[in-house]
């Protein structure tokens, strides 16, 4: 009835889009990850839960190639991420991944519209075109009215939605969200989650959702619990 540690292979779903194998990472003497593994399939929302300090963010950073693990492998579409040099890895993050963090992720001096257009422009898109897509995404996330404002002039909920728009604007394959509602009240948090998950489903993007809030995790399709740097997943029979 139960399967501890790693989930059983679900052959029907094909190979995972993103996979972590036995990741270990220490900061000095503190082990943050101690053998964490997980799989993310295309289009699925995976919640990573666990108490604070358990290593969730570290796991996310390793998965996204922001930080190399001490040992273990991260495979994206079958290729090892940590083997890539910095340049291609940055490009991968820019084109295939999107990020939503808890707070303070928008460039404070750019307007919301420019913030959303930035990833496209970094990819070489013309300003007009990039800002057109950005406007579409802002509309979709119901924050078109803050387009010309700076993040400091928008509310927390609006800021997070702008951040979701920025994460989505490149139509990434994986969205990494680290406590995306952590700084928001319930209502705004719900709205951000609905919009985030809805947008991801529409574009068939996978979401790695780090959270310690069960209600946020309830937006996922599947959850992995991180405890003391180890990952753990429970399979319930129906």
């Amino acid at each position, binding site marked *: 009835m139960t399967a501890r540690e790693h989930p059983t292979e679900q052959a029907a779903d094909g190979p995972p889009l993103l996979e972590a194998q036995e990741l270990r990472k220490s900061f000095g003497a503190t082990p943050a990850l101690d053998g964490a593994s997980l799989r993310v399939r295309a289009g699925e929302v995976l919640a990573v839960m666990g108490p604070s300090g358990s290593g969730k963010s570290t796991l996310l950073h390793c998965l996204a190639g922001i930080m190399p693990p001490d040992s273990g492998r991260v495979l994206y579409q079958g290729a090892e991420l940590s083997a890539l040099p910095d340049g291609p890895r940055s490009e991968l993050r820019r084109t295939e991944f999107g990020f939503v963090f808890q707070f*303070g*992720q928008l460039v404070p001096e750019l307007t919301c519209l420019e913030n959303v257009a930035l990833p496209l422009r970094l990819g070489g898109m013309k300003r007009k075109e990039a800002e057109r897509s950005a406007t579409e995404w802002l509309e979709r996330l119901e924050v078109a009215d803050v387009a010309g404002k700076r993040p400091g002039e928008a509310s927390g909920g609006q800021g997070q939605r702008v951040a979701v728009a920025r994460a989505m604007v490149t139509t990434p394959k994986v969205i990494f969200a680290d406590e995306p509602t952590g700084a928001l009240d319930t209502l705004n948090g719900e709205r951000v989650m609905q919009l985030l998950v809805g947008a991801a489903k529409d574009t068939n993007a996978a979401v790695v959702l780090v959270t310690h809030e069960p209600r946020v995790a309830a937006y996922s399709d599947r959850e992995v619990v991180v405890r003391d740097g180890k990952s753990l997943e429970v399979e319930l029979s129906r």
Partner: protein
Amino acid sequence: MTSLNDRSRGTVGSRGRGPGAALARWVGDLVLGVRLAVGGGRTSWVRLALTAVGVGLGVMVLLAATSVPHMLAGRADRGNARAVHFADEPSSPVPGVDAALVTQRNDEFLGRGLQGYLVELTGPAAPHAPGVSRLPGPGEAVLSPALVDLLKSSDGELLRPRFSQRIVGTIGPEGLTGPNELFFYVGADGMRSLPGAARISSFGSGQQSSQISGLELLLIILGAATFLIPVVVFVATSTRLAASARDRRLAALRLVGADGKQVRRIAAGESFVGAIVGLVVGAVMFLIAKALVPLISVSALRGGIFSADIRPEWGLVGLIIVGVPLLSVGVAVLSLRRTIIEPLGVVRRAKSARRKLWWRLLPVVAGVGLLATQGSKFANSSSGASETPVIAGIVLLLIAVAVVLPWVVERVVWSLRGGSPAWQLAVRRLQLDSGTSARVVGGVAVVLTGAIALQALFLPAQADADARDSGPVEIRATMNGTSLAEMDKFAAALHGVPGFAGAKVSVAGTILDAEQKYASIEIGSCAELAAHAPLPGCVDGDVFYGKAKVTRGNGQGQDHGQGEPKNNHVLVPTAGQPVWFSGIKDVKASTPPHWTIPAVKGTVQLSEQRSDGGLLLVTPAALAGVRTISVFAASNVKLQTSDPRTVEYARNALFPLGWNANVMAFNLVADGGNSEYLLIKRVLNIGSVITLLLAAASLMVVALEQIRERRRALAVLVANGTQRVVLARSLLWQMAIPIVLAVAIAVGAGLGLAALLLAVVSDHPVLFDWPTIGIFSGAGLVAVLGVTVLTLPSLWRAASVEGLRGE
């Protein structure tokens, strides 16, 4: 933030009555400010350290500047103390001192000045020369330590032949103007007959230092203002590091209920700490620099500077000690307007109100007005009364540059849009807060403005020096002698040096009659003398008198009659007249005449003009049998080589002839400095460079502070896959945009200031030295580039994963 609120509650909440309570509140607010400055953990310490270093650098430069008068005075005093008064009449004997015969020699070695005295003692009680325990006898020498070192080093190889004497001592610091000065006392004999030798009983002259002319004074004022204003700007900027973070903190205090006055007091307390620590750091840096200064041997410093000479002027030190904290507190308090009026906007990083232009133009108007109305008075009078308005005008205009620049930067930055992401990041960043960069860059702009204005002022003075510099190396070899044989040896030795083979040597002298009337003579073969005028039927033994060419209207006195000199000190030679050779000591009517002028074979017309009306042309045989003679040989050679050692070869070749032979090279004069302009210019250039470095350093400090403040945003950008080069480029733009604007304004303002000064204050034509302006502007841009490169490592560090972790 909560801890901040807790802390503030004690002062913000308490509202006692009475003067005691008010004072307690005051102190409480100040203490809170102090605690904000030091009590915020690592971040506050880093900020405090940066502020302290920034203020410290400024304080160090200010202290150094206050030391300049002492330093110059010390050098001048010691120079005067060893000076010799070369008067025609011997100085009155001092009882108990055996007078010495002294002549001064100015030499140079590979472009370094080399000076000293030839001395001949007449008895055991020789006069005292400063720093010298015993003056050298014949075959002995006393040298400065730097000269001793130079002789020992491999560089000194070519110099060694000139100092073969036994070294019997070194010159102490009280006899030198600087630690690296090359100076010597060489013992000699036979100087009685040496032209130009003085008989002295003591060294030292009560001479006044040379009077500074109007234009020179202007240069000094402009230079000092140029590099002191940016230092002050720099100090002010340093105390406002992390201004936006600090403003937000203070705005938060304001939001929890502090009133405007309290916020001002808290800010005052906070910046006061930085200023005080900065003063201490500055004093320490100054002491370190003082200890290191003697090691510097830049030729511009002419012999270096004694550590002991660097003594700040105490009154000015007091001014610095009081002024720097006042300045920093004043700036902190004055710039709080927005924090007090709209704290919410500050906390939320909203756009701020545009800067106002009108008051920024006041110094421009006042400065131009002062210069335009008062400048001409300055030009016409040499008294000090008219200096103040001109100084004020210059200072106002320089301040205006620093004051107008933030407005210009803001306006330009707001009108910029579009561009690459890097450009956009930079522009938006500047739009949000262009004040800090503009303030720093204001310092650079002031330096550049001043430097450019100085260039224009220097140009008239420099024009002929440049003309000379652009030609080939010109060498002038000279020798004083007491016999024609010596002159022949001189010519032979000179002709032996490669490149000097055909050099023309002219031998000349001056004769005096019993009434001290004088005439010039030139000695040479008929062929050599024919260069002055055709000499019909000349044979060796003949004497001709050449009359100078007559010119009109130069008021020199030879424009009457057929070259008949009006000047009644001039001797018109006549046959049989007894004469004495000038330049020999003890020329008196009582001594027997040296020579009797033979029959003059003819009077000829010279092709040149002369102030003494004529020239006696003498062939060698006419002087045969004359025992006492004083003549001077000179040869001017234009060399096509640029090898500086050629000159040294010539000097060494002439060395066996003694110290009477001298070789000078004209455009190798690296520190000849016969022009006061050169020295002033050099000092000011050094000052400008220091200030530019200072400005670059402060630019860097500001950049570091901004990076630290934006850590999280940077880290998120990198996490999102932003290329590092984009971030680097954005940093570069962020610094380059203000700098480019600063350079543009500085060039405009500098040229304008120079034109104004030259047109109104002095009547020189307006000329601009574009290459130098280019160099100064380029230096500003290079500074930006350098600062960017130096800042990159901390940018990378800030943009790492670390930045993603919560604050």
